[in-house]
């Protein structure tokens, strides 16, 4: 059973990572980020039921809250990019390099 949980977690995490690496739209990348965090939540929930550890469950809630905060910040940043009149894509964010 453990391996199944880790397989799911790993797969979702990899999907999320792939979305960040491969997608060009910033919103999609944000979704990938959220996916990664959620994937880890799955593993944590499984383990806290296995170890009967209520504290960890509370931690999962906190992590969800933090992920939400992160999403808020990310969206506000994407909004700022949009307001500046630029395309919400990674290609338009390539001025700083080297």
């Amino acid at each position, binding site marked *: 059973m453990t391996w199944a949980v880790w397989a799911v977690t790993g797969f979702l995490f990899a999907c999320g990572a792939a979305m*960040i690496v491969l997608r060009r739209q910033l919103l999609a990348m944000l979704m990938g*980020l959220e996916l990664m965090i959620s994937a880890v939540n799955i593993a944590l929930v499984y383990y806290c039921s296995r170890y009967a550890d209520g504290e960890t469950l509370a931690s999962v809630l906190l992590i969800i809250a933090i992920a939400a905060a*992160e999403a808020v910040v990310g969206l506000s940043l994407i909004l*700022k990019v949009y307001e*500046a009149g630029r395309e919400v894509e990674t290609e338009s964010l390539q001025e*700083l390099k*080297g």
Partner: protein
Amino acid sequence: MAQFLAQTSLSGLAPELALAALVCATLMAGLPASGRRYWKLIGPLGALCAFALALTTVPAVEAPGLIRVDGLSIGWQLLIFLAAVPFALLLRGEDEVPTALMLGSLLGMGLLASAGNLLMLFIGLEFMSLPAYLLVARGARRAPAREAAMKYFFAGGTGGSLFLFGLALYYAAGRTLAFSASTGPMAEAGLALMGVGALFKVGAFPFHFWLPDVYESADPELAGFLSTSMKAAAVLLLMRVAALSPHSGFVRCLPWVGGVTALFGALLALRQQRLQRLLAYSSISHAGNVILGVGAWAALGAVPGEASSIYYYLAAYLFMSNGAFLFLRQTGLRERCEVTGLSRRDAPGALLFAVLLLALGGIPPTAGFLAKLLIFWEAIKAAAYGPVILAGAAALASLGYYLGLVRQMYLDEPLPAQAAAPARPGDRFGSIILAACAAPAAVLGLAPWLIGVFSRLLSP
């Protein structure tokens, strides 16, 4: 619940509580037009207040399991809050939001320092990063600031996620979120991923790519804050992770990561033309040295009292980096070619910058020299000879740009267009703070007895 509340006293968190109160006050009180100039005071007042409170904090374990205030914690909080003072004093902002963001970030760093279990580490990490993303986005130069903030956000998010994944693995192996030593392949993997998260925040190769963009586009004083306060907090995070299991594979790899980072940062800084980007890569190189120190410290048993060399390095770097970025703020210099012949146009400024550059380069008797010496010494004690050689080569290479800049300022003739350029547009206040940063950078190298003081400070 009542028992929990009865057991809990939050006296160890006094600085954080004060900061939290100030953040709330700042945000909720709005901005009466008549009190506009007072907002400028809240930031530094908050930082100094936190610093003072941290000084008076006694080590304790609070809210059992969640908060642990030990010598490392207090020491690092002192460092972090002190490093924020220049930024707080020189913060440019039309409204109260940057002040609140800064205080919020400091709060997060304080939580990270006082973390008692792995989850608190994660919370502190995210708490301190989120305001930082927003601060970066509010830079004076709009477009680059937003781009850099975006990059910072995604890189930071990925790092945090990796940290979380590692946390889950470590929890699975150890059955607890508290700081514990676990063995086994899952624990090793978990530790490594948590380490990656920490390394990202510190700016190690190859997790550093966000750093030059962010430091280049941020306001110079913000870049100073990020390179000192934020980096110190990140180093503490790395130390906590490494201390979980001093004999793990991650700790074995850590010195090599440090050495490679140091060399990478130094080499890439050689051909940079934009000054803030150059300082960013130099910051990466210095971070490499610190990582090497952390690796050595962990390999030698992760004894808190022995972290004084890392502490000294961060303390010295606090002054050097803040000073360097403040200099750029004061003079408004952006490109490397603008520095040519500065000694003739602006002698005091050139002198201050030269002192800071020499300190960054590690020339005796500045603080930078003693700092590097101590780190290398610890690394040799931990038998990390290869990484020390890399870091030594990096130090040598770094002289190429530090001394190169000094030479440009003093020995080269100013280009005709620059000779007519106006003198510094900066303000007197900023210059005072700049001098206040440059002086310790120059002189601290003559005070090796500080090491003993730090050792006592850091021991529980």
